[in-house]
């Protein structure tokens, strides 16, 4: 070390960066491993491609271990205020790894059946995880934006990975164009805030904002930042891309888009609105209320009209995003905790629902119609039951964990004296319960259109069962996750 | 001598502009003369290599041949093809020539003889030369001709491919010298071992890659697929005639000389004498440093340029034209990896103070 240090320019020697590197250990490991997977994959052929898969899964597991080992409640800011390591970030990162691990596991046989079992899927997936990690640990506008772009770029490519599918290319184009517009909005807003505060670092911005909370330039910037965030989260009225992308992309990609990035998007919202612009919470509360109510209404009502289950899940996502926004809207610690809990629970449920689609799909057949679920109970009673768990949980029926997630949000909203908002949310949830229950009705009370046995890979079956049991188990013991979330907030 | 001019108030007010213009002319006019005689040299050298005589009728040993060619081209009609984009058609050769000439602004001829001591000189050269490709592309497109467009396409792809390798090679030089100022790059090669101190030795792979990429960048044989007279007639300048063609011709040779000058500066120590600091030549006790001290730096510089020019001509007489996909393969799959690896090696050599190039002794 000293040998190198002797040759470094004085500016670099006096810098703290090198001594702060261990804080970013998970990011560094991720980057190295993603690059190694990229290179190793070059030397594998289609028969030995499993090596890429195993290496990727190993990376994610290793990262879980590394992050758990170095888990810290202490908030430390590094790299000249561009990076932050804190309990919330660490916990969210651990869930990102676990969710991505599950995504890779679910999608393996799906990809194999569609000639998509290529190294690029895993390399881009790992880089997307790196993007999420950067977003989660971002402490300045610069890193938030760069992390977001890294994530989005991987996602655009993943959606388009099935090149010969016209619908996939179309949804990739839509995703890309709208995503680019959203990034533009976000950048525009950031530049306004930079103009008003003279800093890109969230802590400095917060201090500046506190001095002068009714600055019109700041509010102007806030509006654009919020538009960008809403685009990425998929909140109404910036939700148009979501159903098309979910429906158009291969299910193995849709499950990824629909799960882990939501955790990162939640972290980004928290960093921007709470860490950076908390001084403007009176303003962003109003905007969030409008978007949350609109998301709940549009998401739940339009989902009823869908016949494609991926599209239906997209609208269901929109309504769940409404709930997450409600929690953040409270601008209270209780609300943030509830939102974080909701986000994590939602990703687990989304994983399961998409996992079921992949479980029922097979070569040349995409099981993404509602009708495909008809009479599932007669074909596979166990997995019909698992699907029942996911649907009940998403609808918010006790004792499943989805119920506790909704309950904690509603509690937080009532705690800030917005009972009318809580009532609205409950009403729309009840409307939304209709389409979740419809699937259960199709599975249990209708006759199947085809009676062939479902062939699912054994690892997929095990993981899917575990996923379902987790939803049930966490519903019985919600404090398992809730306790973790409360401890880091 | 020119006191009566330099004392006037008008001169004093605009001194910078007037003097700069004069310096520019002092560089440009010899450059164009050099270009003219490079064409003569080319015909003579290739003639000799192919056991022919070359031009001999105009002037003594054909020495006036370039002027005859020039006058012929000046008085020829400039034909504008129907359907051509007239503005772009005429601008294209000018862009090519301008980029070839503008780069000379930062070329140091001797320790103090340089028009502009730009700190980012290396970058400036790269940027300015990279603009030259527009001349070729615009010419190909504005001509409204299939052959011309094909030539332009080939040229665009080729130049982009080789510019990366060239840029990486220059990154190695920049790391070795620790400066982007061309004058300082030359001075960094000064030492006590004469030509062994120059960067061609530690940066040998980069040197080769740079010069070969330079040949490709100038669209010269064996990389002249953009012209490819046997397949696409004359490529991008098939529709050009008279003076517009002459400007392309001029630019091509000016670029050749430029690449040769840059290679000399970056890898062969510019104006430095090959016997710099050699007091005991080959252990024979001959003080070559003192013996050659009278030779001006510029002479060494021009001699080095001449070597590269000769290589250009030699290549043209020797190698058959590369096939297009082979050119792409060479650029992307061979040169770029070589340069990337060698940049790493250079980094370690600089860090390890490998003598005699780096460290306290240099």
């Amino acid at each position, binding site marked *: 070390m000293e040998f190198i240090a002797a040759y470094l320019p004085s500016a670099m020697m006096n810098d703290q960066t090198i001594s702060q590197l261990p804080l970013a250990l998970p990011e560094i490991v991720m980057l190295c491993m993603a690059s190694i997977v990229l290179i190793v994959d070059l030397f594998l052929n289609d028969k030995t491609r499993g090596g890429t898969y195993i290496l990727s899964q190993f990376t994610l597991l290793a990262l879980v271990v590394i992050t758990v080992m170095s888990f810290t409640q202490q908030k430390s800011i590094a790299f000249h205020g561009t990076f932050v390591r804190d309990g919330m970030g660490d916990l969210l990162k651990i869930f990102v790894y676990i969710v991505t691990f599950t995504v890779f596991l679910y999608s393996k046989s799906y990809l194999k059946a569609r000639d998509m079992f290529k190294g690029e899927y895993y390399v*881009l997936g790992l880089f997307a995880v790196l993007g999420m990690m950067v977003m989660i640990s971002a402490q300045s506008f610069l890193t938030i934006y760069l992390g977001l772009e890294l994530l989005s770029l991987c996602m655009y490519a993943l959606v388009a990975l099935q090149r010969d599918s016209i619908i996939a290319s179309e949804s990739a184009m839509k995703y890309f164009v709208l995503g680019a517009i959203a990034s533009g909005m976000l950048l525009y807003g950031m530049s306004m805030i930079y103009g008003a505060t003279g800093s890109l670092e969230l802590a400095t911005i917060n201090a500046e904002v506190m001095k002068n909370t009714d600055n*019109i330039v700041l509010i102007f910037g806030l509006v654009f930042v919020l538009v960008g965030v809403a685009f990425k989260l998929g909140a109404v009225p910036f939700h148009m891309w979501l159903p098309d992308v979910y429906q158009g992309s291969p299910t193995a990609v849709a499950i990824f888009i629909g799960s882990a990035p939501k955790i990162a998007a939640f972290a980004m919202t928290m960093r921007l609105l709470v860490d950076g612009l908390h001084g403007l919470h009176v303003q962003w509360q109003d905007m969030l209320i409008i978007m949350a109510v609109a998301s709940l209404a549009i998401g739940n009502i339009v989902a009823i009209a869908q016949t494609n289950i991926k599209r239906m899940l997209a609208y269901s996502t929109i309504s769940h995003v409404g709930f997450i926004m409600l929690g953040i809207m409270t601008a209270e610690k209780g609300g943030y905790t509830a939102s974080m809990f909701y986000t994590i629970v939602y990703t687990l449920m989304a994983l399961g629902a998409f996992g079921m689609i992949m479980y029922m799909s097979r070569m040349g057949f995409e099981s993404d119609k509602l009708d495909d679920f008809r009479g599932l109970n007669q074909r596979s009673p166990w997995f019909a039951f698992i699907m029942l768990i996911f649907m009940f949980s998403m609808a918010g029926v006790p004792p499943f964990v989805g119920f506790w997630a909704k309950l904690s949000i509603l509690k937080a909203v009532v705690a800030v004296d917005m009972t009318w908002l809580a009532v609205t949310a409950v009403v729309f949830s009840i409307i939304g319960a209709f389409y979740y229950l419809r699937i259960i009705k199709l599975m249990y009370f209708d006759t199947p259109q085809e009676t062939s046995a479902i062939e699912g890979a054994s690892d997929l079956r095990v993981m899917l069962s575990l996923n379902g049991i987790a939803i049930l188990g966490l519903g019985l013991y919600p404090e398992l996750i809730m306790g973790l979330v409360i401890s880091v907030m | 001598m020119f006191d009566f001019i330099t004392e006037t108030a008008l001169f004093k007010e605009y001194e910078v502009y007037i003097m700069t213009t004069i310096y520019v002319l002092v560089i440009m006019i010899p450059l164009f003369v050099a270009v003219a005689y490079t064409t003569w040299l080319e015909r003579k050298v290739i003639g000799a290599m192919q056991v022919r005589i070359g031009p001999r009728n105009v002037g003594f040993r054909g020495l006036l041949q370039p002027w005859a060619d020039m006058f012929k081209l000046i008085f020829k009609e400039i034909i504008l093809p129907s359907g051509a984009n007239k503005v772009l058609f005429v601008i294209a050769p000018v862009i090519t020539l301008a980029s070839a000439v503008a780069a000379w602004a930062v070329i140091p001829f001797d320790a103090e003889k340089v028009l502009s001591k730009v700190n980012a000189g290396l970058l400036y050269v790269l940027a300015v030369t990279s603009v030259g490709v527009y001349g070729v592309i615009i010419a190909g497109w504005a001509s409204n001709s299939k052959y011309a467009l094909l030539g332009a396409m080939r040229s665009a792809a080729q130049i982009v491919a080789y510019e*990366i390798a060239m840029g990486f090679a220059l990154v190695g030089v920049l790391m070795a010298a620790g400066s982007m100022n061309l004058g300082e790059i030359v001075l960094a090669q000064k030492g006590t071992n004469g030509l062994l101190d120059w960067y061609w030795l530690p940066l040998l792979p980069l040197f080769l890659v740079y010069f070969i990429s330079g040949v490709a960048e100038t669209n010269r044989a064996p990389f002249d697929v953009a012209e490819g007279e046997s397949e696409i007639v004359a490529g991008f300048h098939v529709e050009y005639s008279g003076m517009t063609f002459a400007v392309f011709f001029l630019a091509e040779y000016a670029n050749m000389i430029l690449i040769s000058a840059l290679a000399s500066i970056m890898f062969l120590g510019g104006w430095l004498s090959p016997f710099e600091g050699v007091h005991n030549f080959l252990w024979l006790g001959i003080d070559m440093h003192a013996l050659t001290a009278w030779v001006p730096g510029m002479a060494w510089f021009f001699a080095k340029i001449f070597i590269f020019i000769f290589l250009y001509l030699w290549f043209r007489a020797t190698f058959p034209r590369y096939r297009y996909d082979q050119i792409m393969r060479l650029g992307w799959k061979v040169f770029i990896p070589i340069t990337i690896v060698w940049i790493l090696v250079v980094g370690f050599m600089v860090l390890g103070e490998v003598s005699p190039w780096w460290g306290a002794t240099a």
Partner: protein
Amino acid sequence: MTGVQFLFYAFAAMMVFCALMVITVRNPVRSALFLVLTFVSCSAIWLLMEAEFLAITLVLVYVGAVMVLFLFVVMMLDININRLKEGFVKYLPVGIGVAGLFGGMLTWLLYNVEAADLKTKMRTMYPPSAKPADYSNTEELGEVLYTVYVYPFEIAAVILLVAIVAAIALTFRRRTTTKYQNPDQQVSVKRDDRLRVVKMDSEEKK
């Protein structure tokens, strides 16, 4: 007006003009060429601000490489302008409406703030002091990039890597029908591999 100011306004005017031409010219190749000119004027303005590294890099990267490839593609594609312009008139009122609404809102917003008030709210940015002749913009930038901004800088590098991976993943097709030659084998071919000298008895003339 000083010389620098004159140059600034000249290049700024050229830049705005070219940028306008980029979006109004009908021919895509000319549009791309105007974009090149926009970049060049922008680079000149940066030079006036003594940011020579940025200025030169803009020319080197955008003009010298990115736009060349862009032109390459634009020339290859036979873009049908008339089809692109289809529906232009149909959507024009909507476009004007949205733009008008947005512009109106912006004006309203800014009009409601006193100009002086806005000045106090936007941070005052003073022009940087002129640098000495031996000041190296490149060196300064390098130092900042590798210390203060090293983390964002590395992420940007990763984004570029992902862009390469994504581009290759989306476009690379190994076509089995292509006749492919291996240059190594071509070069290392021996005479005996190709040529067989056959001994034949000479035939007698009948």
